[in-house]
C-alpha cells in the first residue's frame, strides 16, 4: 500500500515569519508540461510594503554586525543548502522540467555562489575603499557603506535560474549590510520558498532577506515607487510585459532617486560590481595636528 504524501503549503517569507498573502490570493504553480505542483501565495501591494517595513527594521542591526560575522552567516547558508541538496534538486527538476543533472548543477552553482560572496564580506571594503592623499593636513578615507533596503526582481527565465538567480541577486546585496525584498521567479517559486526555510533555520536574522512570490509585473511597481527602498535591482524585470516595462519601473524609482540596476539575461554572474552597485561611498575627513 502506498503512503499518502503530505504536500507543503508554500507561503511568503517576511520578517523571518511565513505569512500567507494578506490578500488571501494564491496561484497555481504548473510544470512546463502542465502538471499541478502547488499553490503559491500571490503577494499583494500590502505584502510588498510589509516586507519593506521588515527589511528596514532589520537593516541597522544587520549592517552593524561585523563583516566577519556577516561572512559566516552567508557561508552557513551554503552549508545548509548543501545538506538539503537532494530536496532542491528534486524541486527544481520538477518545477523547471529539467533533468536531475541540470538541476543538480544549478544547486551546486547556487551553493558555490553563496560561498564566493560570503568570502567577500570582509574584503570588498578593502578593494572598494581607499585612503586619499589630499593637499593639506587631513586624514581622508573613503569607505563603502550599505545603501539600506534593496528591492530585487529575481531572474524570471523558465529554466536554470529559479534558485541560482535568486541567490545571485540576494547575496551580493546583503553581504555589505543591506537588507533585501526579493520577488522570486514567478513560474518556479518553490525553491525560493524552500530557500526561505533554509534562511529561517540559519543564522540570517529575520527581515534581512524577505521573499515574495507572485507576479513581478504586479508587485514591482509598488517596490519601485516605494520611498523607503534605496535601490532597485531589476535583474529579472526585462521579462515583464513587452520587455520594456522595466523602464517604467526606473522612471518610478527616479521619484526618490532610488538607485537602479538594469535587467540582465539569466542569472547575473558573480561579480564585485554587483556588490559595489549596492553601496554608497562615504568619505571622512579629519584634521591632523600635533596640538
Amino acid at each position, binding site marked *: 500500500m502506498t503512503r499518502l504524501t503530505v504536500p507543503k503549503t508554500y507561503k511568503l517569507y517576511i520578517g523571518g515569519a511565513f505569512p500567507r498573502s494578506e490578500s488571501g490570493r494564491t496561484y497555481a504553480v504548473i510544470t512546463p508540461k502542465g502538471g499541478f505542483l502547488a499553490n503559491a501565495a500571490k503577494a499583494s501591494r500590502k505584502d510588498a510594503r510589509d516586507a519593506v517595513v521588515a527589511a528596514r527594521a532589520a537593516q541597522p542591526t544587520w549592517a552593524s554586525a561585523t563583516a566577519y560575522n556577516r561572512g559566516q552567516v552567508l557561508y552557513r547558508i551554503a552549508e545548509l543548502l548543501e545538506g538539503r541538496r537532494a530536496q532542491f534538486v528534486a524541486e527544481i527538476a520538477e518545477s523547471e522540467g529539467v533533468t536531475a543533472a541540470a538541476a543538480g548543477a544549478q544547486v551546486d552553482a547556487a551553493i558555490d555562489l553563496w560561498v564566493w560572496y560570503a568570502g567577500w564580506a570582509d574584503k570588498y571594503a578593502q*578593494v*572598494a575603499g*581607499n585612503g*586619499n*592623499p*589630499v*593637499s*593639506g593636513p*587631513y586624514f*581622508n578615507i*573613503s569607505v563603502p557603506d550599505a*545603501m539600506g533596503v534593496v528591492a530585487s526582481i529575481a531572474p524570471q527565465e523558465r529554466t536554470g535560474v529559479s534558485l541560482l538567480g535568486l541567490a545571485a541577486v540576494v547575496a551580493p546585496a546583503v553581504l555589505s549590510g543591506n537588507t533585501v525584498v526579493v520577488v522570486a521567479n514567478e513560474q518556479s517559486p518553490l525553491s525560493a520558498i524552500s530557500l526561505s526555510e533554509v534562511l529561517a533555520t540559519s543564522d540570517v536574522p529575520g527581515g534581512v532577506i524577505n521573499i515574495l512570490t507572485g507576479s513581478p509585473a504586479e508587485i514591482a511597481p509598488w517596490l519601485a515607487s516605494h520611498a523607503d527602498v*534605496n535601490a532597485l535591482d531589476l535583474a529579472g524585470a*526585462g521579462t515583464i510585459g513587452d520587455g*520594456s516595462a*522595466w*523602464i517604467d519601473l*526606473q*522612471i518610478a*524609482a*527616479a*521619484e*526618490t*532617486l532610488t*538607485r*537602479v*540596476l*538594469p*535587467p*540582465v*539575461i539569466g542569472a*547575473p*554572474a558573480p*561579480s564585485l*560590481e554587483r556588490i*559595489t*552597485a549596492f553601496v*554608497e*561611498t*562615504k*568619505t*571622512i*575627513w*579629519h*584634521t591632523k595636528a600635533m596640538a
Partner: protein
Amino acid sequence: MSFLEYAPAPESTSILNLRKSYGLFIDGDFVDGRGESFPSINPATEKPIAEIAGANEVDVDRAVTAARRAYDSTWSRMSGSDRGKYLFRIARLIQERSRELAVAESLDNGKPIRETRDVDIPLVAAWFFYYAGWADKLEYAGLGASPRALGVAAQVIPWNFPLLMLAWKIAPALAAGNTVVLKPADTTPLTALLFAEICQQAELPAGVVNIIPGMGSTGQALVNHHDVNAVAFTGSTPVGRAIARSTAGSGKKLTLELGGKGANIVFDDAAMDQAIEGIVSGIFFNQGHVCCAGSRLLVQENVHDEVVDRLKYRLSTLRLGDPLDKNTDIGAINSAGQLERIRTMSEIGESEGAERWSPACEIPENGFWFAPTIFTNVSTSHRIVREEIFGPVLSVLTFRTPAEAVAKANNTPFGLSAGIWTEKASRMLALADQLRAGVVWANTFNKFDPASPFGGYKESGYGREGGRHGLSAYLQGSGWEAPAAPEAASTRSARKGRKAVAK
C-alpha cells in the same frame, strides 16, 4: 574707527580682457548661437557684463555631432599619455591665468574674490592636474582590467562654483577618454567661455570640449540627445529627478550631484574656537550657495547658548559687500531669483515660529544681497530645516545624546554632507559610521580635494566626483556604480565595439 572698518581694497578688473559678446564654443571655434542671446549680469551691481549666445536644439545637435566626430576621429585614438599631456597643459594655463579667472568669477557669480582666488581657481587647476595623471593609468584605477571610455558626455553644471564645477565634470571625462558638451548655468557662463579660450591656447583638438550656454531648455535638449553616452548633472534635486526620469531606459550612464541639508553636529567637548569658525565656513562660505552646506546646526543642549552667542558675535564681524574687495567675507547672492527664494524661505521660517537674527550690516543699494541669518527655536518639522535654502541661512537645533544627534542628522531625504565637532576620536568615528552622508567632515568643514570622492546618499544624487571613484562615471563596464543598461533599441544602433547587453 572700529577695528572692522578697513579702507576698500578692491581687486582691479584691468586684468580682464572681456569681449562684449560671446558665441557658443563648438568644434574648436566660437560660433553664433541660434537660440536667444542673453546678458550675464554682475549680481553685485545688476550691470550686464557681456552678451552671451544661447544654444537651441540645432546648436545642441551641432555640438554633440562635433563631440562625436572628435571622439571617433581623434580623442578615442589618442594615447592616454597624450590625453594626459593636454590636461596638464590646461592645468598650467589655468594656473597662469588664475588671477584673471578669479576676477571674472567674482564678477559673474558675486562670490568674494578671497574665495575665488584662494579656493575656486586653485582647486580648478588641481582638478585638471590630478586627472591628467590618470589618463594613462586607467587600468590601475581598480575599475576593470581594460577600462574604456563611454563616448560623448553631456554635462550640465550649476552657478554656485561655475568654473570649479566645470573642472569636476570635464577633467575626469577627458582623462577617461570621452569628449564633452557642457552647458554652464545661465547666470554664470563667463568663466566657462574663458575656459574655451584656454582649450584653444592648449591646442586641444577641435570638438573634444564644446561649451553651449543657454537656459534650462538647452540643458534638457542636451541630456536627452540620442547620441550622448553619459549624462552628468549638478544642481537641484527636482531637476535631477527629471533627468533620471527622462534618461531611464536609454542606457546613458548617469551621475547626479544634487541638493543637501547637511547637519553640523557640535558636542560640548568641541574645540569651541575652531567649531565656531567651522560653523561659519559651513554655512556662510559662498553665501551658503553650497549643496553640501552645513545648514542645520545641531548643538549639544548644554552649550547651545554659548555657541549661539559666540556665533552671533562672529557673524557681526563678517563684512558683506563688494565681491572684488579683498576684505569681503560675504558677497552677493547670485541672482534675483535666488534672493527671492532665500527671502521667501526666511519669511516662512519666521511665520512657523522660529526666531530670526541677523547682524546689523549695511546692504548695498544695487545688487542682490542677503545678510547672514540664524534661526533659533527651530523644530525638525520646520520647512527651513527640511528644505534646501541655498543661502546664508542657518537653523540651530539641539540634541542631548550622540544617538539623538545621529537620528536628527539622518532625518532628511538628503544625504550629502555632515560635520562632527568633538575632541573625542572614538565618538567621532562611531558617529561617522552612522551618518548617512557621502562626505563627513570631522573638526573641519567644506573641504574639497581632487583626490577625495564627493557625492551623496539618497536624494542628494548618485555617483561620486573626485578621486579614483570619479573616473567610473565616464568608463564602461566595470564600475562602482551600476553596469550599463541594455541599450534601448529605439535610441541608437549598436555602435562598433559596444556591448549590446549588460552581463
